[in-house]
């Protein structure tokens, strides 16, 4: 292999100092040469490069910077070496490596301000997007032929049918957990039969729809954001617009509509499965036979519990669909943003769903459905 780079300091007869370089001055063979060159202090008469076998631009650069620092000159050496040193010297110009430094205090302050502005912008943007969706819906009502039924049905499958397995499993387990925990507490009062009230009312009113919304936000809301974000990056959305296809009609509305339609169905399905889970636990560990369970259920769960769940579900669906599509359409710069926006879509959707759920709870109590 090549000889490693080396340097020797020599004193000349006339008192000047000469630095003799030898070996291969390439990045692989430099080792600690840059540090040793830095350690040399002037004055130096010249740097002799005659013994250098081979040099690359990084070697040439280390020599050039030393020459500049010590205000000396290069002597000897092949024309190739000199040309290389000359070539890197010609383009010696400061270049910033990183964006300019900002003190931590200013940076934190700036970040807080930016976060506030972002939140306000997101809120305004989300409202505007919601308005855009409404306008599109109105446009489609006036021109029903533009409605993309195939796109919507396709989304039905992705959002709804494909989710049946995971939502069913989750609901079944939640039904069991509620029944089990409820039974443990209610047994203290000898009221184990009330477990049925707990399971029936809780799942229909709250948990069925809420858990479904969280699952759909994680499954479909994130997928919407990622899909639309990638399409924005590859300029697919722009291409669509130039061809005269409105991205709102072709992308946003089918997705949003699919979630809005699928959420009540999935929510109802989830409630039923959760009740089956609860019934299963009642039969196995509380010795309540399924017939009794169903009979009791019919007595204690009022029909408006079902309506409470079914009214909330499409609203939650709307929130999930719109925040997913909105975040996706906000992607501008790079692949990293797609990830950030996807996360934001899910967090935003779940947060808004839970906030709205609280409002719904107050509202339904107020109208007397309790």
């Amino acid at each position: 292999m090549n000889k490693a780079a080396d340097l020797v300091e020599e004193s000349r007869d006339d008192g000047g100092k000469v630095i003799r370089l030898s070996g291969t001055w390439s990045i692989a063979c430099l080792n600690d040469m840059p540090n040793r060159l830095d350690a040399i202090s002037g004055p130096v008469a010249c740097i002799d490069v005659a013994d250098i076998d081979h040099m690359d631009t990084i070697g040439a650069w280390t020599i050039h910077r030393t020459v500049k620092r010590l205000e000396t000159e290069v002597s000897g050496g092949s024309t190739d070496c000199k040309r290389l040193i000359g070539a890197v010297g010609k383009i010696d110009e400061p270049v910033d490596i990183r964006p300019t430094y900002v003190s931590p205090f200013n940076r934190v302050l700036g970040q807080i301000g930016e976060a506030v502005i972002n939140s306000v912008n997101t809120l305004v943007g989300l409202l505007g997007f919601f308005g855009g969706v409404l306008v599109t819906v109105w446009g489609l009502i006036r021109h029903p032929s533009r409605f993309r039924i195939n796109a919507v049905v396709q989304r039905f499958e992705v959002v709804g049918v494909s989710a049946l397995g995971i939502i069913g499993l989750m609901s079944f387990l939640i039904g069991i957990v509620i029944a089990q925990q409820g039974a443990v507490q209610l047994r203290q009062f000898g009221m184990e039969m009330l477990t049925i009230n707990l399971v029936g009312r809780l799942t229909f009113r709250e948990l069925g729809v809420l858990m479904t919304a969280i699952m759909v936000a994680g499954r479909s809301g994130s997928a919407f954001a990622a899909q639309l974000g990638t399409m924005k990056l590859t300029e697919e959305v722009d291409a669509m617009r130039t061809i005269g296809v409105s991205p709102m009609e072709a992308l946003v509305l089918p997705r949003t509509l699919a979630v809005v339609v699928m959420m009540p169905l999935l929510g109802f399905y989830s409630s039923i499965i959760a009740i089956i889970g609860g019934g299963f636990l009642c039969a196995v560990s509380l010795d309540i036979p399924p017939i009794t369970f169903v009979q009791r259920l019919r007595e204690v769960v009022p029909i408006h519990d079902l309506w409470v769940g079914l009214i909330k579900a499409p609203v939650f669906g709307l929130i999930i669909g719109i925040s997913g599509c909105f975040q996706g359409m906000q992607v501008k710069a790079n692949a990293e943003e797609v990830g950030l926006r996807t996360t934001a879509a899910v967090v935003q959707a779940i947060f808004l769903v839970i906030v709205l759920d609280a409002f719904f709870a107050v509202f339904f109590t107020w109208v007397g459905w309790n």
Partner: protein
Amino acid sequence: MTANERQAKEERIERAVASDDIAISVRGLKNSFGDQTVHENLDLDVRKGEILGVVGGSGTGKSVLMRSIIGLQVPDEGEVHVFGEDMVGRLDDDEALAIRKRWGVLFQGGALFSTLTVAENVEVPIREYYPNIGPVLRDEIAAYKIRMTGLPPEAGPKYPAELSGGMKKRAGLARALALDPDLLFLDEPTAGLDPIGAAAFDDQTRKLQETLGLTVFLITHDLDTLYSICDRVAVLADKKVIAVGTIDELLALDHPWIQEYFNGPRGRAATAAVSRERGKAAAEKQADGRQ
């Protein structure tokens, strides 16, 4: 494959590996995706210190060939030697590290790391392979590499998303050149650049090649690039390299695709431009001689 053929192939490989002036040697390469075979029995040699242009119609597997050589794509069959070292499937192999340090790759879109600034992108290979280079020197190296590829100094602290297509290519080139490689892979470096930018890029590549003695593996569709900087051109068609040679040598061949490629309207325009240049240079020389 009969025993005879196999022996003949082994001999060919040995010859290629043994000879010192070959940088890359590909033998019997086969690549397929599902039912679709992209390469079959493909042979190619790249000599040290040359700029080899690789041309071929869309979908003939130019990029796949490059990916096979640098080890991103493990071929179904065949051997790839870079500087005499077998590289098939050894992208993550520590022993092949010495070879990997000796090449730089410019991907089609630049493939810059989007969370790092341009200058930090250039520093990545140095930081990874040579931790002995201190931060100050590393910054300086990144700075002159950026200047060397013709980027303005303001480009250093910018993020890739803030750059135009041409600047991304240059930044990608700066990163590919960070370690002063012996071997440079360029995948369509001038695609998407304006003619002035493309000509400047060609000029830059040629200059770098001359200064640093690089071997360049250049995939291109750009006929001007082929005429102005390539020493030899390899033509990919029918799943293999059907011909390698200078453009004049290729023109002498009677292959329909080659004829159409170089003698089509664009090919003729590029030829005319080159002969105009040469004529101008000759005229200037004559004028100089008279004075």
